[in-house]
């Protein structure tokens, strides 16, 4: 299932959180050879993890991480502006209606459903929170994955060559895109919405109280 967790909620899911940061080390350092920091416990974390971001995490039946990505609003510090600002034409992307996604990660054990389900969560977030776009930084390899998932981004800029080529891109909200991603992933929109609502609708108590 998909979980939506802010960083300050991760402590409630220690196994899930630990395996996410280990899988990030495995993907970004071991497999892709990126210049990322691995801490003494083997986890990949960066300064954006300290800003209480929102994570969407695929939880495997055994409670471990299957895949994930990380959201932050572009009104605060974000990678697309801090690190890759020169790729968007000298104008920072800054709007409360545009959030950044980074650290799209898939574990080695992840089934084919996981990548699509995570992308679909981007659609749920845009739909549920009134966003117009999600922006992201990704490498060459992801372009192909996004195409397979059915969610190709609009490319704003890129630099580097081959394996090291880095792109900045945008996904505008479109319900048709969500339906396509859902269909390809084999996850129904209803189920995807249910995961979203499970995370962000804690109560229903106000209604009960009023009718009491």
């Amino acid at each position, binding site marked *: 299932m998909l979980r939506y967790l802010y960083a300050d909620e991760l402590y409630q899911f220690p196994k899930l959180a630990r395996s996410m940061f280990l899988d990030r080390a495995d993907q970004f350092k071991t497999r892709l050879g990126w210049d990322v920091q691995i801490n003494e416990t083997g986890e990949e974390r960066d300064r954006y993890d300290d800003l*209480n971001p929102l994570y969407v995490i695929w939880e495997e039946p055994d409670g471990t991480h299957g895949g994930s990505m990380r959201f932050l609003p572009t009104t605060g510090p974000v990678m697309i502006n801090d690190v890759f600002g020169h790729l*968007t*034409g000298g104008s920072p992307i800054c709007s409360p209606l545009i959030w950044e996604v980074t650290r799209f990660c898939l574990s080695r054990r992840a089934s084919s459903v996981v990548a699509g389900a995570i992308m679909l969560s981007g659609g749920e977030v845009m739909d549920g929170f*009134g966003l117009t776009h999600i922006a992201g930084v990704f490498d060459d390899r992801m372009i192909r994955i996004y195409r397979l998932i059915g969610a190709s981004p*609009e490319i*704003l800029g890129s630099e580097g060559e081959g394996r090291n080529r880095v792109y900045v891109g945008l996904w505008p909200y479109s319900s048709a895109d969500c339906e396509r991603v859902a269909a390809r992933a084999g996850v129904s929109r209803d189920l995807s919405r249910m995961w979203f609502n499970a995370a962000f609708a*804690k109560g229903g108590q106000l209604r009960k109280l009023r009718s009491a």
Partner: protein
Amino acid sequence: MDGKVNLEPILEELDAASALEELEQVTRTLRDTLAIDHIVYHWVDSAGDQYGCTTYPQPWVDRYLLQNYHRIDPVILGCFQRFHPVDWKRLDWSGKVARAFLKDAMEHGIGNQGYSIPIRGPNGQFALFTVNHTCDDTVWSDFTSTYSRDLILIAHYFNRKALEFEANRQPEFSRTLSPREVDAMTLLALGYNRAQVAHSLSISEHTLRVYIESARFKLGALNTTHAIATAMSRGLIVV
């Protein structure tokens, strides 16, 4: 609350505000324009100090402060450290303390429906912008889906204005337009369509859309037309 009302005059009033009392007047205008019960802009800093403006009745404001309700208010607790807008129905009102608080609030004339937008400002600053009303769930969900994007933008414009009032504050980012944004807005003001503007600037329409979006936010506008008008009236673009 039928149809969608024009909120641009309110943004102009907000932009012109130079003191907290004027912000308070803006909350009243906004409340009346939206035909809802209340608007609250509430800033809580890391030391627990509170600041803001509201159309809530004064007895409720006094009581809230006296009781230190910000420590148990499910809206504050549910929105602190968050950045997604929150419908009050989605908060946890199940505890005894929260239920008593809600009862007290409603007895003081606070509506049963709320939609709160958390804002993360610079250096750990945190604020909440809330719209509040008395109605059923269907009416409320129509209202929030019609206005959510406008309300999110207005919430951030309120916070930006409030930050301006703080003494010795450095502006968080420049509100002047970048050269590319000036080019884009000028061409749009001249009546070019987006495809023509993108072509003239040798950029994709996607990139153009990002320029327009960031210019709109800098200008404190709700849509492109309003952003162009604001840029012209401030002399940022010359047509």
